[in-house]
């Protein structure tokens, strides 16, 4: 879902950069207040794992592929939507600057779509669904799916504003493909959460006890 430079006019791209920078500043404030030093190795491992898994495009029908984004996982594991912003910003910086994956002028939009929306929908979706159905892994799956799907919907709206997609076709096509890619996001989020929770139940943050 990495938007390339050509898809958004420079002026609009700048607006998304401003929004992204506000959330990056909030994420840094979250880190200073709530990300204890014991979390540092976990942040490094999550960022590396998310970078690697993003390179693994999994085929879906219709000659299309998709990969995990990972913001929901980071937000759930580290106990704050801002953790999704924090980790995804770093991942998108490396992808954009070293690998040309995702544009430079539009990196703000990619940070907003994947880091901010992914982190917030993932985190609050997980907390809400877990509160209703009680099952951690089902909640992680649903939150992962929703985080990816809503990121894609926002992306379609941005590209409609940009003039790159007509709105209705953009929503239909982006929504359809990412409804399926969301299953990848949800599945890997649930499995990774299970593995982390099994290995180190103590380092998982609990949604109730967390503030940004």
């Amino acid at each position, binding site marked *: 879902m*990495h938007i390339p430079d*050509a898809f*958004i006019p420079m002026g609009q791209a700048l607006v998304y950069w401003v929004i992204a920078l506000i959330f990056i500043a909030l994420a840094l404030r979250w880190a200073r207040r709530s990300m204890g*030093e014991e979390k540092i190795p976990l942040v490094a491992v999550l960022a*590396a794992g998310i970078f690697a898994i993003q390179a693994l495009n999994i085929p879906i029908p219709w000659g299309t592929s*998709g990969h995990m984004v990972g913001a929901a996982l980071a937000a759930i594991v580290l106990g704050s939507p801002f953790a999704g912003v924090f980790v995804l910003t770093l*991942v998108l910086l490396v992808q954009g600057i*070293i690998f040309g994956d995702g544009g430079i002028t539009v990196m703000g939009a990619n940070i907003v779509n994947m880091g901010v929306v992914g982190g917030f929908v993932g985190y609050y979706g997980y907390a809400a669904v877990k509160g209703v159905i009680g099952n951690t892994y089902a909640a992680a799956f649903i939150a992962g799916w929703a985080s990816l799907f809503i990121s*894609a919907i926002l992306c379609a709206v941005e590209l409609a504003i940009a003039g790159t997609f007509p709105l209705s076709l953009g929503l239909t096509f982006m929504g359809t*493909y990412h409804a399926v890619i969301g299953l990848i996001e949800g599945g890997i989020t649930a499995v990774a959460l299970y593995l982390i929770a099994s290995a180190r139940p103590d380092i998982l943050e609990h949604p109730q006890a967390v503030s940004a």
Partner: protein
Amino acid sequence: METEQFVIIGIVIALVIAVAAPFLASGNPDGLESAFFSIHEAKPFMGSELDEEAAGAAEEEAIATTGNDFSYEALMPDYTIPGLDKVGEVLAIVLGTVVMIALAYGIARVTARPDN
């Protein structure tokens, strides 16, 4: 599990994925690219045949529409190392993973809440 062991296992898993990705990853357009090509009639919405010529024209059209012709030559474009085939792809993703560990560790180190 001790933190050291947890971190080592985590890094090993990331590196295994990094090495395997070039062999396993699908080369099909991702969801956004596929939607873009379908909307611009370079590919059927529910089909898989990509018309390369129409796809290229659609990309030119996007630049004309947005006026954003910013271009940037990345060091390892699209997770490749120019001149090296599969080996280059493996190396690129492994290097990226290592850079990611170092960068995330460093940034987390300087931004984390001090313990005392």
